[in-house]
C-alpha cells in the first residue's frame, strides 16, 4: 500500500497535464484510494510520470551476447556494477550485462522494454537472458521477414498457410510481436547478396519481392489481431537515398498498421556518402498524413556505439567501410545478424546528418502519440543516454548550440537549424511512455489510471531536461519501490508478455516435414516450453481494425 501525494502528475492517456493529485497503489496496481496507514511518499515539487516504455531496444539474445564477446575493450572502459548484498555485479556500456541492464533501465525510470529481434531458433536463449534482466517487464519481437518457410509459401501464393506458420512460430517462440528486418535482404545475404528494390524478386525466388513480404506480413499481423503491428526495419537501412525505399514501403502499408523502427536510419537523401543529406521533411510529411503508422526515432548521439542488427548485408558493408571488427551469425532458414563497433563523430558529415535527422523526425512528426524515443540501442547510442536527447527536445537554445558545433558543410544538408519546436513535459510523457505503451497495445502500461500497473517514475523538478530525467527521485515498479535516489531498493523480477495467436493445428504436420528437411535440430526440441519463460503473462490477440 502506497500513497504518493503532492506531486504534479503527467498522465497523457487521461489528459492529466501537471495536475497535483494523489496516486494510490495496492497490490501492484493503481487504485482509487488506500486506507489511512498506507506508506506515504511526499512528492511535492516533484513530477510524476508513468514508467518509461522502450519500444525498440536490443538488450538480450544471441546477437547481443555475441557483441559482448566481440568487444571486451568496451567492457573494460564501461561503468562497473559492484556486487552487493542485494544486487548482482555487472558491466554497463554499450552492451550491458543482463543484471546491469535491468538496473540501468529502472535507474532511468523505465519499467518496460521490448527486445526487438529474436529468431525462433535461439528464442530459448533470449528468454534465459531476460530472466536475468531484473526489475523491468519485457516482451520480444520475432524475426519473420526472411523466414524461408514463409517466403517459400508466399512464392507459391499460399497466404493462409503462411499466416498459420507465422502464428505457430509466434506461439512456439513465446513472443509478443513480429519483426521484419530488411525483408528478403537477409535471406539474400545467405548467398552474399542483398535486396535493394521493393519490386525485384529476392535472390533465389521468382515472385517474392521485399514488397510482397512487407505487405503480406503486415496483413498477417493485423489478421492475427496481434496487439502490436508488424515492427518494420525497412530495406536499405543507412544508405544515402534510402528515402525513396522508405516512402515506397510506407505506401505499400496503406490499409494495414505498421510500426516503422528507427526511422532515422531510413530518411536519407543524396546518392552517395559525399552528398548524403536529410530527407526528414519528406518522411515527416508523409508520416503525418498516415495515421496507420507509428515509428520510433532511432536517434544517433556522438560517441561510441556498437551496431547490432539482423541486417547481415548492411553490416558487411559497414565492416568494409570502417575496417573494424565484424561479427556475423546467419541463422538457418530464419534470419541473420551482424555486429560492427562504430564511433559517431560530430566532425564526420555523414554522422552529423544522422544526428540531425533523428532530432528532426522527433520535432517534425507532429503527433507525439506516433513517434517514440529510441536510439535503436546500442546502434545509434546507448539507451542510458536518452535524457540527453530529451534535453535537446525540450530546449531549442541548447539544441542550437549543439547544431553550431557541427561542421559548416553539414548545415546545408539538414533542417534542424530551422526548427524551434520545444517539447513540453506532457509531450515527453507521451514520447517515453504513454505513446509506446499504446502502440504496443499494452493497456496496463503507460498511464496512471485506475487498474494500471503501478509503474511510476518520480522526478525532482529541474529546469535542465537531462538532469531532470537522468536521476529519478523514486522509481516504482509493480507497486514496489525499486529505486530511490539512485539506489536499487528492490530487484523483484518483472513479467514477460507473450501472445498466442490462433492457427490451424494441421500446420504442425506440414512444418514437421519441412523442418526435418531444412533444419538440424529435432522439431520437438524447437518450441520454447512455457515454464522457461519466467513471469510469463499472456496478452490477448484482440486488435480490431477501426473502420
Amino acid at each position, binding site marked *: 500500500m502506497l500513497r504518493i501525494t503532492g506531486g504534479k502528475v503527467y498522465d497523457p492517456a487521461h489528459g492529466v497535464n501537471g495536475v497535483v493529485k494523489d496516486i494510490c497503489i495496492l497490490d501492484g496496481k493503481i487504485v482509487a484510494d488506500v486506507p489511512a496507514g498506507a506508506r506515504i511518499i511526499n512528492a511535492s515539487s516533484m513530477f510524476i510520470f508513468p514508467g518509461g516504455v522502450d519500444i525498440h531496444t536490443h538488450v538480450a539474445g544471441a546477437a547481443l551476447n555475441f557483441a559482448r564477446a566481440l568487444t571486451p575493450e568496451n567492457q573494460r572502459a564501461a561503468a562497473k556494477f559492484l556486487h552487493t548484498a542485494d544486487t548482482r555485479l555487472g558491466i554497463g556500456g554499450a552492451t550491458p550485462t543482463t543484471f546491469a541492464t535491468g538496473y540501468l533501465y529502472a535507474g532511468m525510470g523505465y519499467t518496460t522494454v521490448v527486445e526487438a529481434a529474436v529468431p525462433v531458433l535461439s528464442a530459448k536463449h533470449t528468454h534465459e537472458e531476460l530472466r536475468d534482466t531484473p526489475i523491468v517487464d519485457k516482451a520480444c519481437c520475432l524475426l519473420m521477414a526472411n523466414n524461408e518457410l514463409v517466403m517459400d509459401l508466399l512464392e507459391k501464393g499460399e497466404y493462409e498457410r503462411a499466416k498459420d506458420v507465422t502464428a505457430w512460430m509466434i506461439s512456439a517462440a513465446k513472443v509478443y510481436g513480429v519483426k521484419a528486418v530488411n525483408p528478403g535482404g537477409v535471406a539474400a545475404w545467405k548467398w552474399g547478396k542483398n535486396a535493394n528494390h521493393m519490386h525485384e524478386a529476392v535472390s533465389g525466388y521468382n515472385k517474392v519481392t521485399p514488397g510482397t513480404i512487407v505487405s503480406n506480413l503486415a496483413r498477417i499481423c493485423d489478421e492475427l489481431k496481434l496487439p502490436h503491428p508488424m515492427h518494420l526495419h525497412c530495406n536499405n537501412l543507412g544508405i544515402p537515398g534510402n528515402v525513396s525505399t522508405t516512402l515506397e514501403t510506407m505506401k505499400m502499408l496503406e490499409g494495414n498498421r505498421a510500426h516503422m523502427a528507427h526511422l532515422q536510419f531510413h530518411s536519407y537523401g543524396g546518392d552517395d556518402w559525399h552528398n548524403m543529406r536529410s530527407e526528414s521533411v519528406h518522411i515527416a510529411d508523409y508520416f503525418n498524413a498516415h495515421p496507420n503508422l507509428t515509428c520510433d526515432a532511432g536517434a544517433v548521439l556522438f560517441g561510441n556505439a556498437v551496431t547490432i542488427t539482423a541486417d547481415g548485408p548492411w553490416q558487411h558493408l559497414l565492416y568494409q567501410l570502417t575496417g573494424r571488427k565484424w561479427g556475423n551469425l*546467419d541463422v538457418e532458414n530464419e534470419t541473420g545478424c551482424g555486429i560492427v563497433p562504430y564511433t559517431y563523430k560530430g566532425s564526420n558529415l555523414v554522422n552529423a546528418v544522422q544526428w540531425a535527422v533523428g532530432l528532426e523526425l522527433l520535432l517534425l512528426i507532429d503527433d507525439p502519440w506516433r513517434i517514440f524515443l529510441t536510439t535503436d540501442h546500442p546502434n545509434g547510442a546507448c539507451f542510458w543516454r536518452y535524457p540527453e536527447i530529451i534535453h535537446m527536445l525540450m530546449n531549442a537554445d541548447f539544441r542550437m548550440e549543439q547544431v553550431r558545433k557541427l561542421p559548416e558543410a553539414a548545415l546545408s544538408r539538414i533542417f534542424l537549424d530551422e526548427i524551434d519546436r520545444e517539447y513540453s513535459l506532457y509531450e515527453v510523457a507521451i514520447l517515453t511512455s504513454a505513446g509506446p505503451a499504446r502502440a504496443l497495445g499494452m493497456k496496463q502500461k503507460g498511464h496512471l489510471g485506475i487498474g494500471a500497473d503501478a509503474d511510476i517514475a518520480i522526478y525532482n523538478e529541474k529546469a535542465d531536461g537531462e538532469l531532470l530525467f537522468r536521476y529519478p527521485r523514486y522509481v516504482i515498479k509493480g507497486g514496489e519501490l525499486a529505486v530511490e535516489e539512485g539506489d536499487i531498493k528492490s530487484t523483484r523480477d518483472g513479467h514477460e508478455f507473450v501472445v498466442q495467436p490462433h492457427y490451424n493445428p494441421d500446420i504442425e504436420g506440414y512444418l514437421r516435414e519441412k523442418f526435418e528437411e531444412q533444419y538440424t535440430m529435432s522439431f520437438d526440441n524447437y518450441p520454447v516450453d512455457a515454464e522457461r519463460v519466467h513471469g510469463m503473462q499472456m496478452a490477448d490477440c484482440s486488435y480490431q481494425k477501426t473502420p
Partner: protein
Amino acid sequence: MGGKVSCTLGEVKNRADLIIYWGGNPAECHPRHFTKYTIMQKGKFIPEGRKGRTMVLVDIRETMSVKAADIFLQVRPSKDFEMLSAIRAMVKGQPVDPVLVEETGLKMEQLQDLVDRMKRCKFGVIFFGMGLSMTRGKHMNSAQILTLAAEMNAFTKFVAMPMRGHGNVAGADMVLRWTTGYPFGVNLCRGFPRFNPGEFSTVDLLVRGDIDACLVLGADPGATMPQPGIDTLRRVPTIVLDPKVTYTSQISRVHITTSPTGISSPGTAYRMDEVPLPLRPALKSPYPSDEEVVKRIIQAVLRKPAWLPGSKVAASDVA
C-alpha cells in the same frame, strides 16, 4: 581486422559447397559432424548431397578424416599461421614469396588451387579444431583463420566456426557473457568483472599458484593440467562436483557426487554453433544435480556474514 563471421550448422547443411576442416579430426572426435551437418547431408540447395560438395582437410598428419576428404593438404607442424598468411595474401592478389610457402610443406600450386576454389564456391565454410587453436600461435591462429573467412566475403559467401570439443563449453561462454560481459577467465575478486586472458586463465593461475581454493565442476583438471598446476590443486582446498570420483577428486578435500548432465539432470546445453537445446534425462539419479549442489553451497555461504567489496574479512578472522 578481427571478428567472427559464422552461421548455424543448418546453413552449412543447406548451402555449403566448399567445406574446409582445419586442424581437426571430425571422423573420430565429432563422428556425426559429416553425416548430420556437413558433407553427407542433402541440403535445400545441395539436393545431390555429397556430390555437390567439396571437402578439404588441412592437418599435420593423416587422420581417419582424410578418407572423407576430396583434398588433403598436409601442413608442417606449427606452420598453420604461415600457411594462412600466404592464403590471405593470395586471396587479395598480393605477391607471396615461394620460399615461405615451401616452409609450410605445401606447394604454391596447391595453395593457389585452394584459393581458386574458395573464390569460386557459392558458400564456403571453415571448421577449425584444436590442432589449429591450441598449437603454436594459438589465438593468433584463430584470429588469422577468422579474418580469412571475413575477408573472403568480398568475393563470395564465407563463414568460419570453431569445432568446440566438450559438450557444453559453448554454453559456459554464453552464460558468462550475459552475466559478466566476458566469455571466460573472469575475475570477480574485486566485486566486478575483470578479464585478462593469461592473467586470469586457469592454467596460468594454477601454475603460478595464485589461488587459495578451487571449485571444480564439469572438468577433471587433475588429469590434464601441467604438474605445477596439479600441485596447486593438491595444496589448496579443492572441491569437486562430479558424477564420478575423478583424478581431481582424489587430490581434493571435498568431493560431492552429482547426477550426470543430460542423463539424469535436466537443463540446457549449447551446440558448437551456439544453438540452445533442451536435455531430456532418461534416468532418475540417486544423486543431486550440479545445479542443486551449487545452490546449496550458495545458501551455506549466504548464512555467513556478508562479504562486500573492500570489506572482505581476512581468512584467519573467520575461523
